[in-house]
């Protein structure tokens, strides 16, 4: 229900803020609800706040699962 977008952290700012980029579009966001976020990490952005850090490994696993399910579907 909540329009949240994955964006890449490009710069850390004072007061627990950060500049994030979605394909070159830059936005300032608050990091008040996430920890251990650094430049290069992806966060889930909702109305100006990062709500979660995206786990790259899990993302890879998800894509692999998707590809597996999809390919089996096509073959059979």
């Amino acid at each position, binding site marked *: *229900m*909540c329009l949240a977008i994955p964006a890449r952290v490009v710069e850390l700012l004072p007061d627990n803020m950060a500049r994030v980029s979605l394909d070159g579009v830059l936005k300032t966001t608050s990091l*008040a609800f996430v920890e251990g976020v650094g430049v290069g990490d992806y966060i889930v952005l*909702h109305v100006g*706040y990062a709500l979660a850090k995206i*786990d790259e490994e899990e993302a890879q696993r*998800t894509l692999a699962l998707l590809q597996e*399910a*999809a390919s089996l579907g096509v073959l059979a």
Partner: protein
Amino acid sequence: MKHLDEYRDGHLAKGLAARIAQEARTGRSYSFMEFCGGHTHAISRYGVEDILPENIRLIHGPGCPVCVLPMGRIDEAIELAKNPVVTLCVYGDLMRVPGSNGASLTRAKAGGADIRMVYSTLEAIEIAERAPSREIVFFAIGFETTTPPTVAAIRLAQKKGLKNFSVFCNHVLTPAAMRQILETSDPQALPLEGFIGPAHVSTVIGTAPYEAFAQEFRKPVVIAGFEPLDVMQAILMLVRQVNDGRAEVENEYIRAVTLEGNRIAQQEIAEVFELRESFEWRGLGEIPKSALRLREAYGDYDAERRFPMEKRFARDNPACECGPILQGLKQPRDCKLFGTACTPETPMGACMVSSEGSCAAYWAYGRFRAPERRAAG
């Protein structure tokens, strides 16, 4: 766009659709409710239902915070905005929601009320700082995803010593609504076999709260990411659970959702908010322990305490079927007002005005899919 485009791949979609068609047993139908309005929007926008097999039915749930906001609360907000010292800050989604007698925030603004659309609560704080002689009221709505930003604003107001900022709080809770649907639904009227669980609510609350539905009601729940391939993968996982006779909580959105959820957000919410005994949900009636209000200690930031108002009870147009539609009992085309009195230009109920309401989604994306046309392909 990384972490977005990969999950919109049309080629993978075809493969997944074929897979679902293989695994869904012929002669058996599957009915799943996608709780979250954002999922409703994604399903419509990408035409996911077009590529699913015929025996999978998706029921649109009430996870649209604009849709479930009772009309009376819009009336109260307009009342607040008409106070000459108040500047009411709202998210864009709320501007056109109909209140009683054709009123809306857009109309109130045209009539002179100081209503400002904001993208983030941070802006409402900035407005409060720049205008110390005005009373800034933030109209807070949303499920658990949108609650942390409201909390952050209150904490920031506290830190900055702002004396002119308050929140009109309408935050509601997902598990309570899911429970209400499960407890009150009649299996004959609503054959509901599982839930596609919300993506971003779950980043905040984690997957643990859904265990109760799996165990108590024997309904599988699969948390799905926001993108169409996420939704399809979740549907595949639900089909498998139903076939296997399982009723578990599974997480498809593992890249952003964990078992515990966002601890910081949960702690902050608990610090500032407490449960209301009961709250009216449009279409679902009064639901106990389903909504939040500010704790006494934060009373200065509670608009309802600062600006005591007469409680407004507004009744929907009797022909408006938003209620049954929100419960998944009826479809938009079952409503007499749909497409006649009720259109996106002239919305009668919130299901039409919110872009993730069932009626708006059906109007925008599904009207051409009359049953005959769908069969023809």
